[in-house]
């Protein structure tokens, strides 16, 4: 599974990245977690509010930074 965290480096984006790491660990799955910070790549997904979460190339949410427990639902 490939998980991408989209965000330009605001505090919320860092929070999301950490929460995703925790969620992956808690669920015990194999996943590659990438932080996408450059604007062209973010815009390619059509995301307009950061941070956003992309799982296997699909945007699952944008503009929020939920808890690790909630992120598990999207993985």
């Amino acid at each position, binding site marked *: 599974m490939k998980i991408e965290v989209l965000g*330009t480096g*605001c505090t*919320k984006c860092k929070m999301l990245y950490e929460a995703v790491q925790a969620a992956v660990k808690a669920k015990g799955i194999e996943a590659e977690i990438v932080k996408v910070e450059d*604007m*062209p790549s*973010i*815009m*390619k*997904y*059509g*995301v*307009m*509010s*950061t941070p956003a979460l992309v799982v296997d190339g699909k*945007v*699952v*949410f*944008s*503009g*929020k930074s*939920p*808890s690790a427990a*909630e992120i598990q639902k999207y993985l």
Partner: protein
Amino acid sequence: MNTLKHTADYLTFDLMGLTPGTRLGEALNFFLYDTTKIFLLLTTIIFVVAIIRASFPPERTKRILSHKREYIGNILAALLGIVTPFCSCSAVPLFIGFVESGVPLGVTFSFLISSPMVNEVALIMLWGLFGWKIALIYIGTGLLVAIVAGIIIGRLKMEKYVQDYVWKMQVGNAEIIKMTFREKIDYAREYTLGLLKKIWPYVVAGVGLGAFIHGYVPQDFLARWAGRDNPFAVPVAVALGVPLYSNAAGVIPIVHALMEKGMAIGTVLAFMMAVTALSLPEAVILSNVLKKPLLATFFGIVALAIVCVGYLFNAIL
């Protein structure tokens, strides 16, 4: 609200034995009453607004505004600015997403002006402290500033002052993620808690300082400098508002206390609009997508419009 007033009276004057009319008694009573009232209002209203917001992700707003004409587009953009969640940290992807999908530049600016200015925190604080009339005047004139400034920027044909890479950007079309009612409630709960956690120190500090002014600064202290007869009060208030960005929660209680001491209402409104709509950090973020002439025009026109609002209300109210 009456129960709150009685409780605050009971705590300060009966329980703590302070005398009504004394400086300390009045300041403490004012502080207790205002903080409880504001936190009650903030919690309920932010929650309700967050549920509405969950239905208006920026991707949806963008689709509504795409290829809209002048006037109707500007009006819609200003209105949608109230309900679409916006944080200045997302201003860049939002701006690119808007212009790339064919939202005219002037319409985009109407949104960018109204979204931070007419926000729920400012409205709740205004309503709680100044009453619903002032809150409504703030919404109305805030929308008007956003609409007019957007139309002017659109007329100036400044597309060439958008950073060149913006036009070359490939923007994907993310599908709009529909939330179930349950998810909306969860989103609203998290949003409310997150926002409260962020702003509570400012509210307490603002109301505290306001209470101090209320109790200790002599009546009409400010009338001479910030009263309606001083023509410089409005521009100075606008200039002072720029560095105070995102602290509407802390600034409004202070301004409320200042108004009691003689600051004119138009000056108060202009100051608050400057606090919310004009901010240096947002300008820095927007410089990623706007070249200097457009950024300066944007700031200049909004500042001018706010100054006009200030003079207008100082003249008629």
